């Protein structure tokens, strides 16, 4: 059904055209270029308008040309600012915690939901449902749920448990953001892994069963190696998206209490749009770009080649 082989089918031209005369070849080559240009243009224009030009503009804004200040003064400023350094620390801590949790849960759910469970469609829908809710809306729902006198603590108290200071304690707030982000993220990343598991030939599982392998051995020796490619994609994409978390912080904690959830995207947006310091915000943006590119570069090296 699903084959890992993705060799391209032999090009029909090669067998039918033989050795064409120089003129038609040029025309063909021009046609190919025209077609390529036609199909690539929207992507290239979008890339220029939405990525390259804004990045160049951030570079220009972050360097105070035409003033008495040093060219790198905005970078010196943000790296001497405890708020910015704090946001780097919080973002790093958040990434170290949230990525393994999200990927681990997504993998566990993907394995579970590809088994023959009763009402598997219902479970899958329930897990995927949070993706359909806009981030800001889901954050508002969580804001009400996590209020000190809100429903979550109401349930906890009814069960005889103490109240949890979800969003009001500097020790707990970041964990609350991890929960909110994972509520959305786990289902989303799970879909990629479910597809990956479906791509693993069932014959491998059947053969290993005959050889007496148990579920755990099958997971370790068949599922995990078979999932390498989608797992690495999920790792890269999830890491990047978690570095760029904004809406839950804006809605739930505004970076507090005491800076404990001040993640880098929120810090940059505060500088730009509340404090009006676009120079420092642009410098912060470039730092973020460098971090993201560095992490992605390392993760890409882990990506498999043509296996």
């Amino acid at each position, binding site marked *: 059904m699903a084959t890992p082989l993705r060799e391209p089918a032999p090009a029909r031209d090669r067998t039918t055209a033989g050795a064409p005369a120089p003129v038609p070849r040029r025309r063909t080559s021009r046609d190919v270029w025209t077609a390529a240009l036609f199909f690539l243009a929207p992507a290239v224009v979008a890339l220029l308008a939405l990525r390259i030009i804004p990045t160049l503009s951030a570079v220009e804004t972050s360097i*105070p040309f035409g*003033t*008495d*200040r040093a060219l790198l003064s905005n970078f010196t*400023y943000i790296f001497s*600012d*405890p*708020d910015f350094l704090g946001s780097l620390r919080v973002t790093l801590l958040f990434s170290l915690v949230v990525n393994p949790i999200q990927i681990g849960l997504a993998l566990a759910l993907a394995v579970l939901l590809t088994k023959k469970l009763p009402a598997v469609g219902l479970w899958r829908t329930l897990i995927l449902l949070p993706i359909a809710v806009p981030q800001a809306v889901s954050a508002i729902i969580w804001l009400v749920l996590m*209020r*000190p*006198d*809100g429903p979550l603590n109401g349930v906890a108290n009814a069960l005889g448990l103490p109240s949890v*200071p979800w*969003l*009001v*304690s*500097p020790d707990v707030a970041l964990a609350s953001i991890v929960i909110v982000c994972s509520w959305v993220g786990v289902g989303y990343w799970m879909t990629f892994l479910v597809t990956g598991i479906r791509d693993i030939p069932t014959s491998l599982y059947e053969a290993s069963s005959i050889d007496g392998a148990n579920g755990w051995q099958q997971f370790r020796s068949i599922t995990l190696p078979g999932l390498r490619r989608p797992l690495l994609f999920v790792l890269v994409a999830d890491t990047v998206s978690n570095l760029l978390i904004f809406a839950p912080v804006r809605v739930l904690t*505004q*970076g*507090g*209490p*005491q*800076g404990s959830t001040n993640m880098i995207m929120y810090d940059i*947006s*505060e500088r*730009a*749009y*509340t*404090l*009006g*310091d*676009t*120079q*420092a915000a642009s410098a912060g943006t470039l730092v973020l770009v460098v971090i993201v590119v560095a992490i992605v570069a390392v993760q890409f090296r882990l990506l498999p080649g043509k296996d």
Partner: protein
Amino acid sequence: MRPRLLRRAATVVAALAVVAGCAAAPAGDAPETIVFLNPHAGAYDDVVAEFEARNPDIRVEQQSVPFDQMVSQTQARLASGDTSVDVVSVDPPRLAGMVTQGFLTDESASADLLESTSSQVGINSVTVDDRPWAYPLWTSDAFLFYNRDALTRAGVPIPGPSDADRLTWDQVLDGARTVAEADTARYGFGIDQVDRYYALQPILESMGAGPGLEGPDSLTAAVDTPEWKRFGAWYRDLYTDGLAPRGVDPGQMADLFASGGLGFYLSGASSITKIAESDLAGNWGIAPAPYVAGGPVVTPTDSWGVGISAYSEKQDAARRFAQFMTLDPEGVSAASRTMNLPPVATAAMPAYLDHLAEVAPAETAGIGDLLEIDLERHARHRPTSVGYVQFETTLNRAFTDLRNGGDVDSVLATAQDTLVRQLDRQRELAGDH
């Protein structure tokens, strides 16, 4: 088949073009549309309708954003030179920063007009470098609202309505504690503008603390003084003791009081209509804002005005609307009805008080006198500084940290350090200009 389809399509397009032409035809020219960016959804519908009826050549499109996003919206749009905003709501303490960044037009040409219609205090609130840069619309005051039933059942005396009856904070909080213990309301006390400097500055200054910004240009931070720490402990304890609700933001406080959840409630006139129309109707009252025993009585003042964007391409039309809404008594009355805030234009005051008397006759009977006394004797402006946004943002965050039980010394020390750094940065950036 195909040509017929094409012909039909062409007919439809032609018909639409004729209809569109007709719609614009009667006035000769289409009305000029100006955009009014504000943080008060629904508050200006009456004044816009009234203005459009009198000025058929101008149409006003309102863009109302949430209160918390007004600063970032203004900053993002005007800093990028967005020409699609013509009139913008302005909070007076933020005016200096907006003027420094070149967001607003100099309205010196209207200085005489302003003098003849508005109070001096109102004019001062929109003046930077001796020139007016906006039109003041409302002023403001704080009052102590109370839940009559909750107080009576708990045996707490009902506070009187006049300046002479003003309670001290100790008296109010004792009463609030009694209400909470008797469980006649869920919480003893609540503040409408939780964690906002506007609401807390009067309490701070009544405790003997400074405003937090000092020096000739109000660019020196002083928020870790012993008086500030005393206030910090007081504010924190309100919430750690459970006397006031944690985790309820300003948007939900009036509803909490109106649903009977609070014994006492420190709020402004803008809550009156909501409370008067709630289940609490007939069961509430208004007393003067409390003060700290031994300290001065201090009340908040100033409120939103409107400015004209320096990037607007329709400044004349924008000015006509801004002036109608803030200087013409009928425009001011229409603009003040929904938010219920007291107007700066002196001629519009009687109509404002009449309106309050219609909404809540018994409860607001003494409010006119109280407003006059507070505005004349007790009102304290927020500091005017190009660093006000930095100041307010940092402090509002510090107040939230205190409310959440943060250590007073460390929260205020952090706020002080942050402010010193940000105000230095403000000076550094100002040096570029």
